[in-house]
C-alpha cells in the first residue's frame, strides 16, 4: 500500500515536471530559458572541428522574425544542398524580444546540420530580449577565422542601447586589427579577407551615425574587408563610403532569399543570391 502511494505520488510529480513545466509559463518576458544555450560557443567549437581549408562555402540569412515556416524551409533547403559548410544569421531572430520567440526560432535553427552563428538585431533588444540573447547565444561581438578569412561579428544597433554602450565597439575592432596584423607579420597572407557581419549598416537609423566616417577609417585597418548585413529587408550590394568596401544586404526570410558565399582556393569570393 505504501509502495503504491509512493508510486502514485512519484507519477504525479513526474507528470507535473514533464508536462507541466513547459506549460507553466511565468511571463512572456521571463528570464527562464529551457533547452540549448551558449550556442555561439558551441557552434564555434563545431566549426573548428570541421577543419575547413582555404576553400569553403557558407550561407547568410537574416531577419527571420515571426516567419517560422519560411525559416524551417530555408533550414531544410540549405541542409538538402549539402555543400554549405556553415551558416550565418544576420540578426532579428525575434520580432518582440519575447522569450517564446527566442525558443521557437532557436528550435528552427537547431535544424541546421552545419554550425550556425548569429548576430543580435534591433528587435532582439526589445523588452528583456537582450538578456535572453546573451544567455542563449553569447557575446554580441566575437570573431573567428575560417581559412584565410577573419569573420568579425559585431553589434551595430546603437539606438537600442541609447548610445550608453560603445556600439560599434572600436576597442574590439582595434584589438582584432592588431591581432590580424600580428598574424600577417608572423606569416604573410594568413588573413586575406575580413568579413564584417552586422545587423544594421552605416547610415541606417539604428547605426550610430555620429561615427559613420570613423567606422570607415577603422574598416580600412583590416585586410580587404567586406560586410554582410540584414535589417533593411532588401537584397542589394552597396558601397556607402565609395572606397571599395561593399556592404551586401540580404532580404528578410519572408521573401525567401539567402546568400551563398563561395570562397575559392585562391581566397577570392563569389556572392550568389539563392531563391528557395
Amino acid at each position, binding site marked *: 500500500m505504501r509502495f503504491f502511494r509512493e508510486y502514485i505520488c512519484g507519477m504525479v510529480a513526474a507528470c507535473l515536471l514533464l508536462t507541466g513545466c513547459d*506549460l507553466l509559463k511565468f511571463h512572456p518576458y521571463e528570464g527562464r530559458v529551457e533547452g540549448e544555450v551558449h550556442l555561439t560557443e558551441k557552434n564555434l567549437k563545431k566549426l573548428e572541428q570541421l577543419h575547413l581549408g582555404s576553400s569553403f562555402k557558407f550561407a547568410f540569412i537574416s531577419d527571420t522574425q*515571426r516567419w517560422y515556416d519560411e525559416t524551417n524551409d530555408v533550414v531544410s533547403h540549405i541542409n538538402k544542398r549539402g555543400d554549405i559548410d556553415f551558416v550565418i544569421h544576420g540578426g532579428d531572430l525575434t520580432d518582440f524580444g519575447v522569450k517564446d520567440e527566442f525558443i521557437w526560432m532557436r528550435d528552427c535553427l537547431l535544424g541546421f546540420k552545419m554550425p550556425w552563428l548569429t548576430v543580435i538585431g534591433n528587435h532582439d533588444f526589445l523588452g528583456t530580449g537582450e538578456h535572453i540573447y546573451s544567455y542563449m547565444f553569447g557575446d554580441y561581438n566575437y570573431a573567428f577565422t575560417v581559412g584565410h578569412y577573419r569573420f568579425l561579428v559585431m553589434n551595430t544597433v546603437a539606438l537600442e542601447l541609447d548610445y550608453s554602450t560603445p556600439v560599434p565597439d572600436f576597442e574590439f575592432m582595434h584589438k582584432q586589427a592588431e591581432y590580424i596584423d600580428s598574424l600577417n607579420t608572423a606569416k604573410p597572407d594568413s588573413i586575406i579577407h575580413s568579413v564584417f557581419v552586422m545587423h544594421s549598416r552605416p547610415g541606417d537609423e539604428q547605426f550610430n551615425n555620429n561615427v559613420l566616417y570613423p567606422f570607415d577609417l577603422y574598416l580600412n585597418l583590416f585586410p580587404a574587408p567586406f560586410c554582410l548585413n540584414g535589417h533593411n529587408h532588401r537584397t542589394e550590394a552597396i558601397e556607402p563610403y565609395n572606397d571599395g568596401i561593399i556592404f551586401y544586404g540580404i532580404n528578410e526570410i519572408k521573401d525567401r532569399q539567402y546568400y551563398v558565399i563561395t570562397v575559392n582556393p585562391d581566397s577570392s569570393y563569389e556572392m550568389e543570391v539563392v531563391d528557395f
Partner: protein
Amino acid sequence: MKWKWLIFSICWWMVFTAGKAQTAPSYAAIDGKPLTTRDSLTYYQQRVLRSYERWNNLIPNISTLQLAGNIGVFSAGFGWDYGKHDRWETVLQFGLVPKDHNERAAFTFTARESLIPWSVGLGYRRWAAPQASDTHIPWNKRAAFSFEPAVFSFFANTIFNDEFWVKEPEKYNGGDYYRFSSKVRFHLGIGSRISLNIPEAKRRHYDRISLYYELSSYDLAIISAIPNKDITLGDILCLGLGIQYKFF
C-alpha cells in the same frame, strides 16, 4: 529591493483582510443605536444605511493566489463578483517575475475580467446539515461542491521594469517604428474551477475555497502563431493554477 518586499507584504495583507459581509457593519450606528434592522428607522437613518451599504459594495470579496499563468511565478490578488448569479468577476493581481537570466526581477500588475456562465452544484453536504438561513443562497452554492466548467477571462498585464514602454520613446522615429507596446500584454484565457462551499456553521475565514486552472495565450503569441503552421496551439498556450477564496 527591501521596499518592494514591503509592498508585496502589504498586498498580501490586503488579500487576507479582503472581504466583509455586504450589510451594514456593526460600527454603523446613529446615536449609539446600531443599524441592524430597517424596522422603525427614520428616512434619514435609512439614507445613512443605504450609504453604508453602497460603500460596502466596494469591499473586495474575492482573494486569489496563483501559480504561473504568464503574470508572474506567483501572484496574489483581490477582486469583486457582481451581476446576475455573480457571473462576472473583476480581479486585480500583483505578481513577481523572478530574475533568472534577466537583469533583475520585476513585479507585474494584472487587471482581470472573467465571465462564469455556468455553475453546477455537486453533492449534498453530508457533513453538515443545511442551515435555515441558507435558503437565500442559490442551489449551486448550497451544495457541498460547485463546479464551474468554463471560466472565460480577459486580462491585461503590465510589468514594472524600465526596459519596457507603453508608448514608444521619441528616439524611435518620433514614436512610430515598432508600433506595439512592450509593457502591456493582453491575454485571453479559458479554464474551469471546482469549489468547496463551507456551510455557515463551519465558516472560519472564507465562505468558499476554489481551485482553478486556466489555459491562456497572449496577443504577441497569437499573432506569431496565425501565419505559421509550425507554431502550434501547444506552443502558445500557458497554464496557470490557482486558489480562490470567496465571501458570498
